């Protein structure tokens, strides 16, 4: 659906229906002009509109003015003998006014010169919204040649590596912290306010502080992603621990299990579904945060790629980057789901 709309508004060849495009071809309008002596005369302007802007053929009589206009641009029309136009197609015109004509609009500048703009249609220009095939073409080109001194895989790999590093560290610290909070009132008392305070702070709000403390390069990014994953994982692990049914703990006790055995064989496995849910959330947050972090400063990365391209108005690379980021984020979640259904098949069926 979105693809069809996209194609329709960019004149894509992949889509059968389009909204009206910009006018291209020949058109003309008539005018009446007044010379300096007050003499009225009729004339005609022939206009060719196209990407190359070639003059129309057959501009013979002295009243005929031939003009070539590039698609999407305006063109001032110099009337012969410095005459002043008073009407266009029989409609009076004054400085600042405009008259719609066939395939375009004729307007008069403040100084009294006529100006023609061809019908733009509803389609977008490539610098605002490139067509799907332009984006695919650019994708193939970037895949072959890379962008900004690095191949596409290096860009994406750099982002993925940062996410992986930040997420792993976050899980490594967050899960034990969550367990400790779930099991010990002392830990809960000390860390609950910190976690609950930090959790709603968007990771992006930490970027300035992280830059001040850790610099703009890899350390800063990994620390940021670590912080993005940490609180989510801690809360998930804590929820997993406190979500255990008391009857399971009681059953394990009355089967003779010790505290450590219950932690190892009951509480930890029981918390895995929650931890997986948390991991999926944390991965999503990390992926979103890495792109934003790369917008600030990076030499490689999916986010860096789109911000660099945006500076040169290379909308097709920006679009390609956005689509890739979306696809990779979706791919990560699919992988996590697969791992989840393989590792915790009892999830939701307790």
């Amino acid at each position, binding site marked *: 659906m979105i693809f069809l709309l996209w194609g329709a508004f960019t004149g894509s060849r992949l889509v059968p229906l389009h909204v009206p495009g910009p006018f291209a071809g020949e058109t003309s309008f008539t005018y009446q002009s007044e010379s300096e002596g007050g003499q009225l005369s009729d004339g005609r302007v022939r206009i060719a509109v196209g990407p190359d802007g070639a003059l129309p053929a057959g501009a013979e009589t002295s009243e005929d003015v031939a003009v070539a206009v590039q698609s999407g641009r305006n063109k001032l029309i110099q009337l012969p003998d410095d005459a002043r136009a008073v009407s266009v197609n029989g409609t009076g015109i004054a400085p600042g006014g405009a008259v719609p004509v066939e395939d375009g609009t004729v307007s008069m500048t403040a100084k009294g010169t006529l100006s023609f703009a061809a019908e733009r249609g509803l389609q977008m220009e490539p610098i605002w919204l490139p067509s799907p095939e332009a984006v695919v073409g650019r994708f193939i080109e970037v895949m072959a040649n890379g962008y900004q001194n690095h191949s596409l895989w290096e860009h994406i790999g750099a982002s993925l590596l940062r996410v992986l590093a930040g997420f792993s560290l976050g899980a490594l610290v967050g899960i034990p912290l969550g367990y400790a909070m779930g099991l010990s009132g002392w830990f809960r008392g000390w860390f609950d306010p910190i976690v609950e305070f930090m959790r709603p702070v968007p990771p992006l709000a930490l970027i300035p502080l992280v830059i001040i403390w850790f610099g703009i390069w890899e350390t800063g990014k990994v620390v940021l992603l670590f912080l993005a994953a940490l609180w989510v994982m801690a809360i998930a692990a804590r929820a997993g621990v406190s979500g255990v*049914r008391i*009857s*399971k703990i*009681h*059953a*394990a*006790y*009355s*089967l*003779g*299990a*010790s505290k450590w*055995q219950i932690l190892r*064989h*009951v509480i930890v*496995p*029981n918390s*895995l579904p929650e931890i997986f849910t948390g991991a999926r959330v944390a991965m999503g947050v990390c992926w979103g945060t890495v792109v934003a972090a790369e917008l600030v400063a990076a030499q490689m990365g999916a986010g860096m790629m789109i911000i660099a391209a945006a500076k040169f108005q290379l909308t097709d690379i920006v679009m390609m980057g956005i689509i890739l980021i979306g696809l990779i984020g979706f791919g990560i979640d699919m992988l996590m789901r697969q791992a989840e259904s393989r590792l*915790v*098949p*009892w999830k939701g*069926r*307790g």
Partner: protein
Amino acid sequence: MPGLTLNNISMRFDLPNGSHVQALQDVSLHLAKGELLSVLGPSGCGKTTLLNIVAGFLAPTSGEITLNGHAVRGPDAERGMVFQEGALFEWMNVRDNVSFGPRMAGRRKSDYLPEVDRLLEIVGLKDFRDKAIYELSGGMQQRVALARCLANDPDVILMDEPLGALDALTREKMQALVLKLWKETGKTVMLITHSVEEALLLGERLIVMAPRPGRIHKEYRLPFAELGAGMDLREVKKHPDFGTTREEILSMIWNMEEEIMGHMEPAS
């Protein structure tokens, strides 16, 4: 003295608002080895609290429990428990659930596996031993819970409405299984239930508890468990004493519930 003895057990819960609830008041009870006792009573009479105290999950405010002469403190493998539902470990298959107790005790595989498999056969789950818990029906899950408890060879088995979540038909089959297991293993069993019929069928002895404060109201000695071990439970229900005892207990509990409702209504 062998068996399970409860001596003047009282339990008081202090509420945050300063008042307190007397959940149990001077409950004394003796269960000889191999006896099957069912406990009945209206909701709120403290029967689950009593079971949790015997299991060791709760410490009584006063009173003492002894098992075969030694005092009971905290949960222990000598007192196994079967819960209503949700106490199995979903991340283990059927066999690993049943062998949980022996495994935690550090016993060797060759040592406990034959017994685990024998128990699975008795409860009719031999072909399901490698299945995951969530693949089993509710009745099968309770069979696993029974086998898991027995695999640990406890002295006393405590059952907290073990069949409460099952449909009527499954429940009947499971009642027969509980009786069979009790007869075969000779374990001391304390069973809590909401169903008067179940209490009559399974209880060699039956106590009816009264609420506010929770205490033993009346005790019965019943022949039905003995009968049921040798014949169809439906036949047992046709026994003339079965119907009259059931009606008697039902009206007793009914009156207690009425009284509670009366307490709650404002005086007119």
